[in-house]
Structures are given as structure tokens and as C-alpha cells.
């Protein structure tokens, strides 16, 4: 089968690899009908996530048809159409039982590796490094889905693949980012990053009762999407002198009630600290560039919340902990507990409260994935979200 494989920084290739087989009783095999490239795949593409191996199959946003199930899978059968969450969850551990799905105790075969880096291991993820289990991903014609009786969500009615595909990751991720803001009446939510997750966080903030939503980015077409599709006020950080002062001014001197860092470890910026991060990262003294996180902490009003859906992988410098402490901020973060949100969000899609179709800028055959990775990574004009057709 065709699969998008990682071979190093800026080197992904479409290879012809064997089809997956059932390996455990709770597995299923899914014939993929639609898959996507995620912004977090770009961290892999740029080589910032440790423990990738040459030949690893990428992809964690996918859906398709169940073609085979293991002996212990009763909730799915051949022919079911499913969206697969990017988190692999056993469904029975302390964390799964408490809906903290991305922290599953039992789904990472390389848990000892994650423990060495992070103290404890989270759930296994599809196509996201050996640290997260080394599971083959879904940018392929077929994927093996472990614990298939827990995560995959059946789609039975007439919704199209494009309408539901993003339930696999970016929609729950944007939604959880907004939910983590604990939005109260009158709240202003500022969102750094107008990539797909940032845009969906903006939409979700409205659904959860925000009074105002402010979007921050420097890519014009993304700011346009934020204005047109997410009713956000926008701040172009390359034009305003000082983002924090601008936000203060926009909020009558109070600062946003909640700030969302939908950018993560590869932030771009023009301020002095962004240059410092670039220099340190270039000489391997820092793994992540937390420019946005610093701004969010600094900008947030006293007692507010900083919500972090953007991915961090290692060590960061000069985080203004004093500001976070002095202002009594709440910081919430982590991989998305995707299964917690999939059904309720599917219902919102069915009720036409949520539409994610505006994100898709490119529909291309899987063979063109290497080009798509490059264009998406370069934020080339018009490349917002790529969906891949595997067959």
C-alpha cells in the first residue's frame, strides 16, 4: 500500500509498504477514505520531535471503513464507517475511566522511553514518534487501530467525510483549548495562531459563550479566515508595535480574560526574545521556542487562564513564571482527550452549529504529500489545510 513515510527533517516520501495486519485481539484494520496533514505533523517534518525513525508512517487524522476486527472487538464490525481519534486509549485504566484519554496508562509500548524524558508516559499516538509508541500512522491506504473498541466513532448518517474528518484531532483540540479557558459571560478570549487549531479554538470560544474573540497572527489570509469564518477581531503582530499593549488597549486596559497559545514550540516573532530563541535553538541550547507562551502569560489579565493546545516537546527558557505567579494565572495544557469530545462535536456538526469545511484549502492524492508538506510548512499562499485521498 502507499504510505507517507518520514526520513528526516524536510524529507518525507510516499513508499510502497506492506498492508497492516491484526496484531492484538482488540485491533481493527481501517481502509482509509480520507486523511489530513496536521500542523503538529510539521514539528515532525522540521525534526523537532525526538525519537522519529527513518521509515515511520506519518499521520494521525484519518477516517475510513472497518475491514477487519480482532477477536475481542464487539462494538465494531466490517463495513462500519469510523473517524479514528489520534489518541490510542485502552478505556479501562485510571485515566481513561476519568475521561483523561490522552493520558492512558496502557497504550504506549515505549512507555519506559517517555518516562525517562517526562517522568510518566501518556497515551500512544498514531504516527507521532517512538516516544508516543511508534504506531504507524494514517497517511496511508490502511491503518491498524489498536483498542478499536474504545476510540473510533461510528458515522452512520449522510454526513460527508470532509464534514467529520476533523473530529479525529483538530476540532476536539480547538474545542478543548476553549473549554480549558473556563469562559464566563463577558469574557474576551485571545488566540495566538490562526492555523486550523487556532481557528477552531476561536469558533469554539463563541460556542462556549465568549463575549469577544481576538485572533493574532501575521499571515494575511489566515487573519482573513479568522475574520470571515470565526467572527474574530484580528491583530497582525508584524504591524502592531507591541502585541501586549495592543491587547490591553483593545480590552479597556484589562487584558484578555483567557489566552490560547495555538502555536507551540515553533513560534515566530519579531521581538527580541524570539530572536534569542532562534539563536539558542539553532545551537541546540533550547528545544522549543516559547515566544507565544511568554506573550500569552504577559498579556493575560489577573486571575485569567492561559490555555495551551500548541505542542511543546522539550525545554523552554525565560518563561515569565513571576508574571504567572503574581497574576494568579491558571495554566492548562496537554494532548487532547479526543474521545471525550467526538460525539458531542459530531452532534453539533449534525445540528449545523459547527462547520469545518472552510479550513480545507487542498484536496490532493496521497502521492503529492511531499509537496504538500513543504507548501504547508512554508505557509505558502493558500495552503491552510491539506486533505489527502489515499486511493
Amino acid at each position, binding site marked *: *500500500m502507499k504510505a507517507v*513515510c*518520514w*526520513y528526516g527533517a524536510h524529507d518525507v*516520501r510516499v*513508499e*510502497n*509498504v*506492506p498492508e*497492516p*495486519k491484526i*496484531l*492484538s*485481539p*482488540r485491533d481493527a484494520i481501517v481502509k482509509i477514505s480520507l486523511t489530513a496533514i496536521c500542523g503538529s505533523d510539521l514539528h515532525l517534518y522540521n*525534526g523537532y*520531535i*525526538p*525519537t*522519529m*525513525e*527513518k*521509515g*515511520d*508512517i506519518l499521520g494521525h487524522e484519518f477516517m475510513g471503513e472497518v475491514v477487519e476486527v480482532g477477536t475481542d472487538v464487539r462494538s465494531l464490525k466490517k463495513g462500519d464507517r469510523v473517524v479514528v481519534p489520534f489518541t*490510542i486509549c*485502552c*478505556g*479501562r*485504566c*485510571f485515566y481513561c*475511566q476519568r475521561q483523561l484519554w490522552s493520558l492512558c*496508562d*496502557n*497504550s*504506549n*509500548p*515505549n*512507555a*519506559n*522511553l517517555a518516562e*525517562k*524524558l517526562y517522568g510518566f508516559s501518556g497515551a*500512544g499516538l498514531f504516527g507521532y*514518534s*517512538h516516544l508516543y*509508541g*511508534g*504506531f*504507524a500512522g494514517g497517511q*496511508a491506504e490502511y491503518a491498524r487501530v*489498536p483498542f478499536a473498541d474504545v476510540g473510533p466513532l461510528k458515522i452512520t448518517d449522510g454526513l460527508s467525510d470532509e464534514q467529520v474528518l476533523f473530529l479525529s484531532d483538530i476540532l476536539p483540540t480547538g474545542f478543548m483549548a476553549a473549554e480549558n479557558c473556563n469562559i464566563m459571560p463577558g469574557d474576551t478570549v485571545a488566540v495566538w495562531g490562526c492555523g486550523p487549531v487556532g481557528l477552531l479554538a476561536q469558533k469554539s470560544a463563541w460556542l462556549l459563550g465568549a463575549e469577544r474573540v481576538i485572533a493574532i497572527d501575521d499571515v494575511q489570509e489566515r487573519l482573513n479566515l479568522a475574520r470571515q469564518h470565526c467572527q474574530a477581531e484580528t491583530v497582525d503582530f508584524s504591524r502592531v508595535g507591541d502585541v501586549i499593549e495592543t491587547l490591553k488597549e483593545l480590552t479597556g486596559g484589562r487584558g484578555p480574560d483567557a489566552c490560547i497559545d495555538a502555536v507551540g514550540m515553533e513560534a515566530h516573532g519579531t521581538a527580541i526574545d524570539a530572536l534569542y530563541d532562534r539563536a539558542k*535553538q539553532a545551537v*541546540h*541550547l*533550547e*528545544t*522549543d521556542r516559547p515566544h507565544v507562551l511568554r506573550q500569552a502569560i504577559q498579556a493575560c489579565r489577573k486571575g485569567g487562564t492561559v490555555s495551551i493546545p500548541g505542542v511543546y516537546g*522539550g*525545554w523552554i527558557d525565560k518563561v515569565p513564571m513571576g508574571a504567572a505567579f503574581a497574576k494568579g494565572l491558571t495554566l492548562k495544557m496537554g494532548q487532547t482527550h479526543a474521545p471525550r469530545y467526538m460525539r458531542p462535536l459530531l452532534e453539533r456538526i449534525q445540528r449545523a452549529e459547527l462547520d469545518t469545511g472552510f479550513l480545507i484549502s487542498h484536496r490532493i492524492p496521497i502521492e503529492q504529500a511531499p509537496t504538500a508538506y513543504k507548501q504547508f510548512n512554508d505557509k505558502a499562499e493558500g495552503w491552510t489545510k491539506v486533505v489527502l485521498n489515499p486511493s
Partner: protein
Amino acid sequence: MQVITHPRHATNVGKAERIASIIGGSALALAGLRKRTPGGIALAALGAAVIERGATGHCRMYEALGIDTAEKGQGAETTSLPYPVGIRLDRAITVSRQRQEVYRFWRDLQNLPRFMKHLESVQVLDERRSHWVVSAPAGRKVEWDAVIHNEIENELLAWRSLENADVDNAGSVRFSDAPGGRGTEVRVELQYNPPAGIIGAVFAKLFGEEPTQQIEEDLRRFKQIMEAGEIPTTAGQPSGRDAKDEGTSRRTNPHEDDVQYASELSFPASDSPSWRG
């Protein structure tokens, strides 16, 4: 049968041994710190633990095994290993299952090879005795008979090898309720005394490098079987390594215990992580 219920402050290590522990532990810690490698840090940590044992006069392994070398101690009849030699390990894990269920699975000793990597088989001979076979490289086997010398249903199992064992060893596992419905805390303590000669060498090779991590991995598999019903795996899944034009030979599981290798390969902007020592 004696169960120590408040063991933390109980002295079960004799005076001479306590002094020896402090001296030996200090030497270990110093040697470990000088090496400045993960192994060295582990050695230093082991040294610290031995120092603590000397300072407090309390040895958790002795406690589990029912050993007491303190001058007025009791329980010497349960001593299973010639003191003070041998390697001792302990590790705990929480299993999100009822204590009775967890105990029952472990008490059926034939289940142990399902999660203990090197254990080939355990044959139950009678209510207390069993025959253990560990597979070793080059088709070698290490075998012994063991007896359960202490058992409290749903709480404790302690066993030791009988005479003529290839490797003298002993162990115990305790089961206790975790707070707030979190399931069962399982604490394993193992002690073994590799002999000189070829069997000792084989055994040292099997368990020598990172014995604590091996116990940890065994316990993790135990938890996975109890909770998820299976051990997660990726062995046999496709990758670009199997692509038709890719014929390179590779290590089968390069990440098994090699964070540093992986990190250097693909952590281009590494901030001298702490585990590099």
C-alpha cells in the same frame, strides 16, 4: 507467621552490618557520581539507598523476606539467602483492579511468564512448591524449585528457592488497596545471589544491565494484562523500513532502552537533558 505492620521505623539490620552499609554505600555513591553516566547515577542512587539502610537500620527487603539480623531480632528461620550477599530490587505499581482479582492472577503462578520477560515457565508442584525455568541466551536454562513460605490471602506472597537451585533467590509481593478507589498497589521485592561460574555469568547477562528496569517493565506488562487485557505492541506493523527499495538491515527494537541514541538522532535542538547525567 509474622507480618510487620508498621515496618518503617523497625530496626531489622544488625549493628556491624549497618556500619558496613554506610561505608559500602558511600563507596558506591562516590563511584557512581564519578562516572557521570546514567549507569553511574543509578549506582549512586543505589549507594544512597544502602547508606540509608545503614543509617536507619531498616531494610525493606529484609522486611519483605522476613529477615531480621538485628541483634534481638526474630524470624531468622525464614531467611532464604545467605546474608549479606546478593542483589536486591524493589518496585511498585498501581493496578486499577480489585485487590482480590489482582492477587488471584498472581497467585496462579503459571500466569507469571505472561508478563515476566525472561521467565519461560512456572510449573506448580503442589500448594506451596513450584518449579521455575528461566530461558537464557544460547539455549541455556536456569532452573530452581521454589517454596511459598509466607502467604496471606489477598495481601502477601513470599517465596524463596530451595536447596540446589541454580541461583539462590527469593521474593515477595504485597497487595494493598490504593486510596480513593484507585485499585491495588502491588509491591514486589526480589533478591538473588548469582553464583560464580557459567550460570552466574548467564544470569548476570540476563539481569545484569538494568535489573530494576526489567522488573519495572515486567510490572508494567502485568498491569497492562490486568487492565487492558493485552500488552500494547507495534511488532509486525508496516513501515518504510519494509518498502521494496529499502533493504537496509536494522536493529529490531532500537528504542528498547536507548533514549540517548534516539535523542541524538532526532533531537536537533537538545538542551542537554538531565538524563544524560
